[in-house]
């Protein structure tokens, strides 16, 4: 069993490395990302679209990698995983963040609420001062993120939304399309 696991691990780590067949490279944050139903696989998959700069700029692969590394450090230092889930793993007090970048709530609720003209600007405004933008009884606490930290988290969430998660969460793309 251990030998089988070793072989599967080698293949899985290759498939899930940034730039592997399941996980896009970090500079995917420069492109539009969608999530639609794939009839051949019978599940929803991310669709990488045309150029869509983040925060009005295009990141080189090196810059994007640095941003992701910093974003992950922010996520760990604030223990995001002890309220939220990533790919369904973590704690269940807050919503799952696997496809958070694609959530219709950013454009429907937070863009008007924060007076932001883009999704990423609304996300940064919310993450820096979540206590100022309540939408529900369970409110995210203020974790005192700087603008740079909030931007890194937003970039990280955009990259995560482009990962092929074998159709998890199901129906997210359908709901997104309806909105």
């Amino acid at each position, binding site marked *: 069993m251990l030998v089988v696991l070793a072989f599967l691990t080698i293949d899985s780590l290759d498939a899930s490395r*940034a730039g592997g067949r399941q996980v896009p490279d970090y500079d995917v944050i420069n492109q539009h990302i969608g999530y639609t139903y794939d009839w051949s696989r019978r599940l929803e998959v991310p669709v990488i679209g045309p150029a869509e700069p983040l925060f009005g700029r295009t990141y080189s692969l090196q810059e994007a990698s640095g941003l992701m590394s910093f974003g992950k450090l922010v996520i*760990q230092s604030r223990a995001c995983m002890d309220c939220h889930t990533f790919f369904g793993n973590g704690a269940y007090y807050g919503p799952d963040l696997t496809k958070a970048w694609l959530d219709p709530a950013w454009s429907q609720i937070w863009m008007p609420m924060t007076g932001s003209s883009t999704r990423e600007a609304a996300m940064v405004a919310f993450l820096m001062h979540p206590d100022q933008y309540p939408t529900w009884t369970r409110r995210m606490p203020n974790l005192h993120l700087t603008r740079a930290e909030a931007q890194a988290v937003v970039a990280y969430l955009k990259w995560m939304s482009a990962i092929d998660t074998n*159709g998890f969460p199901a129906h997210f793309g359908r709901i997104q399309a309806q909105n």
Partner: protein
Amino acid sequence: MYRSQKLALRYFIAAITLFGVMIAAGLLSALYYIDPALLYNVFDFQMAKILHIDTLIIWLLMGFIGAVYWFLPKELGREVVGIWVAELLFYVFCSAVAVVAVVFVVVQYGGSNEFSMWFINQGRKYVEAPRWAAVGVVAVVLTFVFNVTATAWQARRITGVLGVLILDLVPLAVLYLDAFPKITNMSHDLYWWWWLVHMWVEATWEVLIGCLMAWSLMELMGTSRRIVETWLYIEVMLVLGTGILGLGHHYFWIGTPQYWLSIGGFFSALEPLPLLGMVVHAVYDAGTHHMKTTNRPAFYWVLAEAFGNFIGAGVFGFMMTLPQINLYSHGTQWTVSHGHFAFWGAYACGVIAIMYLVLQRTRSAEHFDSRAWKWGFGLLNLGLVGMVGGLLIAGITQAIYERAEGGSTLQAFVAASEHPWFRSAMYARFIFGIVFALGYFALVYDLLAIGRRAAVAAPTQAAPA
């Protein structure tokens, strides 16, 4: 009594204390669901949650370590080699746990830098403890491994149970090294994180508790070594045969290839088999001895362990790890329901059983019974089953309304969480949590009192004869 056994008693006291902290933090975590404004921006949900799950791991680990330090000198007929290091590290371990807890309560989290990872909070579920403390855990576990292996070496004796235990402790120690890295890629991070979490909880800990239950059954019911060792080998083979690739049920949705859906689904479906073996074993032994024992509390807690492990870890795990179900149940309170039942059944009941076993020996009580243990046993198990039921209803509500119908958007998450089924289930969970806490107090009272009065009463009863 050997020094090692005195150390075991200290470990049990620390374990039962942390069990209480775990319950307090759990009740607080449950309260946030009922009153989300509670301690907002002062002490938020994530910190209570961290205290709850980290003390869970530590109290069980301390219980296991204490149990081994108790059984080891009996097994080998000699004092544990290097016991003074183990004694020293016990205090280091307790101090480290206290310091980490204070940092979690007072400092909570730090900035986005390596300093936070080393000294405040690593932010990875179950292994949030900062790296310096993780180094301490490694030191304790390595010393523990040294104590066990060196004692067996010096005694020039190895038994089947001890051999399995030593082989199990090596991966137990090595896997914990996974508590240190900060990996940028979330898919890779979770891939290795599950090696630690799954391989500890669903493999190495299962084997460890199997060894401890084997020793317990020999002591509790006088079951022959040949029988318990045969069962242990069967269980270990089944645990390793199903549990290693059963790891695959954590790899369905983290960005790993689709073949894990088949592999993980298949082997996870087999994972209840070794747990069923434990039930058969327990029922067989209990039947052979016509349910007669001189230590009823330990006996009933062993039975609770066997059934709780099978139902909580096995049946509840099987129920939600088929990928077709897991697509909707994953990441909901359904997982929490399974987690509570599994940890309780697989490990907590076993550790409590061993505590009763040990107390009978230390208090030299032939008639080892009381009313309080029944209250503790009843309230703890009732509270646990009630919490598990409430969480299951909440999880099913999420699976339907958040996952299947709502597509897991924020709006769907809110809609499911505001659903009357979910809200009432959260009240039920809290109420049964109170019942569980009352059971804890009964347990602690009984652990302090049981056997003491019987030991005094015995000579007066004997006098008229």
